[in-house]
């Protein structure tokens, strides 16, 4: 057999964990010099497949050919030797080491006895110049930006001679500008003859960067398509297996009495500065109020103060007509408040505990889950099974640790737990961060459902799409205050963007209008 046009051919790969098949006869072929996207929902089996390719897992069955030659990738070392390099989502870097030290770690050049730092610096600069991105080898990794850290990860794989680079959700942690830079780097790499697999569930990025795309759904490879030939909608439908709507359908809201009234609230952040600075806000039953704002304008502190997890300096928080200022989290929860916290791993879940115990986290001390201080595990587990079923949480069973679930399913479990208590006020923060379109659609639908059944919903998100999609009113937060309340039907991303940057509403309106007029007059 002559030269293969494929750098990687994975054929009929199956990986079973017990009775559960994470990968079920998956086929993946990557051409030399292409950017190949691997698209799938959370938990579809993308990471399992890539762990097989990088030698971390061994497939139950199936064959892998590298450059046309059948290989057995029994360990990461073998993968390394075969020119396969992984750029991890969570960077595997040591903060106290320099960029150079991190890159050479594990394959240090020596001059007989000691590490040859000069040689290392030269090699690293040579590699980085070849692909057109700059790094300062002597800088400590702890001092560089996230985008730069990712470059160090890329350099690490190149330094080890990788020809195929696997990017695992590379944009999840990057700013929009850094994403643009990464796309340039990836195209540069391909131009220099490398091949790339990018794991993602962000459709716009696939359109922007990938040549071809393989879609995986529930452990099976569904299709491989030329990216140029399909629309984002088609990709989304293929991934989820049904027609997905990006916009959640909803009727007009019918707000009634206020469930949350915040007056002149002042809250300090950890360094002692005012994060929330005299904020006023009202959420009524039967409406979704979205809080838009750039990260760090007091959103987190606001929610923590409302839910009793942070001290209120002054002002009042009234929930369901009762003064809840400075109460303990449980008192507030018991006053019919549900809270989906912004960081599901740090706050929302006790990861090593079972899924069932996590679902009981807010109600374990009450009947029927416990009686006189004794837990009833039969009830806890059956209650969990009901919610898993109702909220479509995908898991092998309710007794696995919460850490075994994918992010989307963890989030569904938290939302199930909070909605199940039937709270009058539901507070959600970043409800769909890191989730795929199918899960996002589902969660948005649930939020609207809550609104329609007469609950008040307060939703904080950095995603403007999300805010515009679910909200009935949008409160824009800037430097600890609500600087404007707008109707999502009468506003747009440009106007919101200006408001979020601190431009007053009147001027923002005028500026947006001017731009529009300008556009019209140019025609």
């Amino acid at each position, binding site marked *: 057999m002559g030269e293969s046009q494929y750098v990687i051919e994975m054929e009929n790969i199956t990986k079973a964990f*017990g009775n559960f098949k*994470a990968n079920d006869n998956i086929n993946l072929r990557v051409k030399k010099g292409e950017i190949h996207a691997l698209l799938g929902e959370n938990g579809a089996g993308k990471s399992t497949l890539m762990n097989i390719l990088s030698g971390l897992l061994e497939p139950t069955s199936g064959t892998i050919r590298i450059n046309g030659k059948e290989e057995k990738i029994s360990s990461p070392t073998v993968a390394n030797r075969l020119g396969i390099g992984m750029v991890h989502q969570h960077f595997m870097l040591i903060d106290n080491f320099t960029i150079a030290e991190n890159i050479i770690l594990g394959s240090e050049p020596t001059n007989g006895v000691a590490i040859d730092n000069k040689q290392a610096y030269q090699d690293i600069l040579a590699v980085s110049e070849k692909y057109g991105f700059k790094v300062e080898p002597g800088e400590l990794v702890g001092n560089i930006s996230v985008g730069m850290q990712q470059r160090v990860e890329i350099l690490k794989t190149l330094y080890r001679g990788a020809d195929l680079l696997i990017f695992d959700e590379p944009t999840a942690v990057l700013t929009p500008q850094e994403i643009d830079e990464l796309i340039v780097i990836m195209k540069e790499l391909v131009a220099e003859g490398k091949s790339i697999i990018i794991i993602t569930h962000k459709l716009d990025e696939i359109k922007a960067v990938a040549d071809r795309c393989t879609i995986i759904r529930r452990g099976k490879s569904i299709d491989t398509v030329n990216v140029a030939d399909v629309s984002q909608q088609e990709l989304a439908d293929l991934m989820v297996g049904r027609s997905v709507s990006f916009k959640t359908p909803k009727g007009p809201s019918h707000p009634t009495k206020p469930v949350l009234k915040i007056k002149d609230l002042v809250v300090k952040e950890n360094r002692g500065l005012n994060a929330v600075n005299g904020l006023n806000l009202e959420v009524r039953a039967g409406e979704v109020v979205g809080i838009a704002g750039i990260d760090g304008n007091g959103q987190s502190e606001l929610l923590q103060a409302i839910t009793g997890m942070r001290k209120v300096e002054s002002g009042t928080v009234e929930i369901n007509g009762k003064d809840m200022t400075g109460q303990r*989290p449980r008192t507030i929860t018991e006053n019919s408040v549900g809270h989906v916290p912004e960081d599901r791993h740090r706050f929302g879940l006790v*990861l090593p*505990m079972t899924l069932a115990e996590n679902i009981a986290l807010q109600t374990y001390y009450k009947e029927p889950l416990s009686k006189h201080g004794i837990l009833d595990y039969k009830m806890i587990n059956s209650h969990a099974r009901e919610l898993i079923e109702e909220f479509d949480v995908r898991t092998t069973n309710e007794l696995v640790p919460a850490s075994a679930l994918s992010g989307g399913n963890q989030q569904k479990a938290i939302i199930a737990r909070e909605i199940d208590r039937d709270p009058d006020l539901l507070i959600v923060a970043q409800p769909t961060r890191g989730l795929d379109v199918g899960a996002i659609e589902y969660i948005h639908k649930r939020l609207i459902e809550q609104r329609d059944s007469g609950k008040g919903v307060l939703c904080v998100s950095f995603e403007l799409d999300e805010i515009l999609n679910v909200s009935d009113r949008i409160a824009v937060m800037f430097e600890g205050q609500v600087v404007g309340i707008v109707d999502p039907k009468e506003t747009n991303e440009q106007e919101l963007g200006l408001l979020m940057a601190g431009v007053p509403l009147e001027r923002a309106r005028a500026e947006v209008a001017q731009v529009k007029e300008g556009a019209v007059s140019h025609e």
Partner: protein
Amino acid sequence: MNKKNELVRSIAVPVISVLAGLLLGAIIMLVFQYNPVEGYGAMIEGAFGRAYNVGEVVRLATPLILTGLGFSVAYTAGFFNIGLAGQALCGWIASIWLAMTFPDLPKALLVPLCIIAGTLAGALWAGIAGFFRAQFGTSEVIVTIMLNYTILYISNHIVRYVLTDNADATPKISPNASLRSDFLTQLSGGSRLNGGIFLALLMIVLVWVLMKRTTAGFELRSVGLNPLASEYAGMNAKKNIILAMVISGALAGMGGVVEGLGTFENLYVLSAAPEIGFDGLAVSLLGGGNPIGILLSSLLFGVLKIGGLKMPSVGVPKEIVEIVIASIIFFVGINYAIRYIMDKFAAKKMTGKGEA
């Protein structure tokens, strides 16, 4: 499937640890030109040879079960209670003091009272560290270490100047306060085996129920695994910190009571805080914090220490015996390494995360 694997592992790891320790002990004996077969033979005979030896093994294990349980409760909630020794001594003092103050109370009343007094004393001593941790965030490790020294010298002062007139030990307590019984003594050929073992077995069951089946235990586990999520879910962090330390200290105090009313039947001037504190810590880690594991590892300590007493009779000097025992405990201590090696071997077959 997954659970079964984990169970096999949690049994295999300590067993392999002990075997590796025995092997190293054998090598050490060989290096110093003693016969390991004879040495271990003597150890087995010393631990199981006669009813007396078995009785002593159980006697030695009894307080370790209690301090080991105590350590595991605090550890589950995320605290490292290194003050078990001091808390045990507190319980020891309280029980002896009460026994000496009311020597003529009927046994059915005096023994429970002494146990309760010792338990409360241990709980109080640990509660100090818990209070400071909850209120000011002070490290419980440092506070409990200092409290170990404090109680050691308080104890010696009490022995010399409060309970006696300048003597090094208190007189024996009255039989009404003793945990020993004729039945157990005769059964075990005159060993110091005492009723404390029933107390320890009861506590194994109670601690298991507390940690696995009550809402209080649910909170302690949750706080230990993720304090932020626990606070989010409305659990009271301060309450749980203090509760964990108080329960831990109460169990350690009970361990001290067993030493006082069962093993020694008096209190004497000590040169260091009681060994059962630090051995309890080791026992708990070896047992993986699991009540049954703690029972088994306490018995192992008993076998090693009591059996080891017999080894000099075949010429292995006391110092080598100590090294052999230490090497076994060393391997037990590095069971993470053994777990790691097992993981490596099993990596290919291991059931891992099934998500992508």
